[in-house]
């Protein structure tokens, strides 16, 4: 990405997430609380720091954005009200709005189904993984 694009994208991410990464005091409680930590390449506190530093390209390309469970534990427990999950969601939105960037395709779904899987899981995954 061009430097200009990066700056604009950072602004976009901050705008649609409503998150101000400057509020972070780097305590790491978000990452201490994250249930998907081990599955993530970049962890919640890194998302905050990296957006703050404008280092978003690695985040946009990382599978980490699809590992967030949106359980909001980091949002609730952050002492500074930074709301990392909303930042991750915004990055995921930005990513998936790029052409051809859907993380999951309808054709992938049948193979992932089992007898008991509730519809809720499918619609949620569609919302999270596809534009």
């Amino acid at each position, binding site marked *: 990405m061009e430097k200009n694009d990066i700056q604009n994208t950072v602004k976009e991410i901050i705008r649609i997430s409503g998150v101000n990464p400057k509020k972070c005091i780097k305590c790491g409680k978000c990452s201490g609380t994250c249930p*998907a930590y081990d599955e993530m390449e970049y962890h919640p506190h890194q998302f905050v720091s990296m957006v703050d530093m404008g280092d978003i390209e690695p985040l946009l390309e990382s599978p980490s954005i699809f590992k967030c469970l949106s359980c909001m534990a980091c949002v609730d427990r952050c002492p500074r009200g930074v709301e990392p999950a909303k930042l991750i969601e915004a990055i995921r939105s930005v990513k998936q709005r790029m052409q051809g960037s859907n993380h999951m395709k309808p054709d992938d779904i049948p193979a992932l189904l089992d007898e008991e899987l509730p519809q809720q899981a499918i619609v949620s995954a569609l919302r999270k993984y596809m534009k």
Partner: protein
Amino acid sequence: MKVSYFPGCTLKTKAKQLDDYARSCAEVLGIKMEEIPNWQCCGGVFNTSSDEIATKLSAVRALSYAEKQGQPLISVCSACHNVLKQTNHAMQTDAVFASRVNHYITQPGQAAAQAYMGNTQVYHYLELLRDIIGFDRIRDAVKKPLTGKKIGAYYGCLMLRPSSTMKMDDAENPRIMEDFIRAIGAEPVIYAMRNECCGGYVTMEDPALSQKKSTAILRNAEANGADFLITACPLCKYNLDKNGNIPVVYFTELLARALGIVEA
């Protein structure tokens, strides 16, 4: 009393019991649940990005319909409740979002008075039991108390968080389900993992992750002496059922049993 009811996709299919028992129990307790006609799926998750409009319209339609009926909007599924409540909150607090949504949903030529501004009261079925009916009345209505049962409440994440919006209970030490368990005559088992995530929809592509999360929850509940768990979320039930041996049942089923609507 009449309330508007948003059942949601799973309650019409895989989680029929959750729906059936909710309705029959409500009736016994004097609440008429009127299903919103032509409701559309809530989408299962609320996208927190403020410019995400289209995915929230189905929720607004349901909320707006309930407002026109002058009724509170009830849902049983934690995911639906989460989406409805967060959407409603956004309609109340984010004027830009609200105006864009209203541009979508109002018909051309329709008066501005038709606009929806987040005035509907959104209740989870558990809140209906606690705040409108009252656990005391439920205790009185119980015919077959579940005496001696040690039950772990499993909240998951959707019902409680983000707590500043959901405002259902103390998100770190909730008690609404425990109070419910007491109301139906059983003994609640309090365990720390009851508000941790089961792995949610990520189970679709990474079942190992949800297995890890669910196992930890079940282990913690078992270690604290739970005979079985109750939940309000079909996806939680799926993940937990798949990854452990403790039975997981919908809370409405227990209520139905306690009220004597179904045989145990």
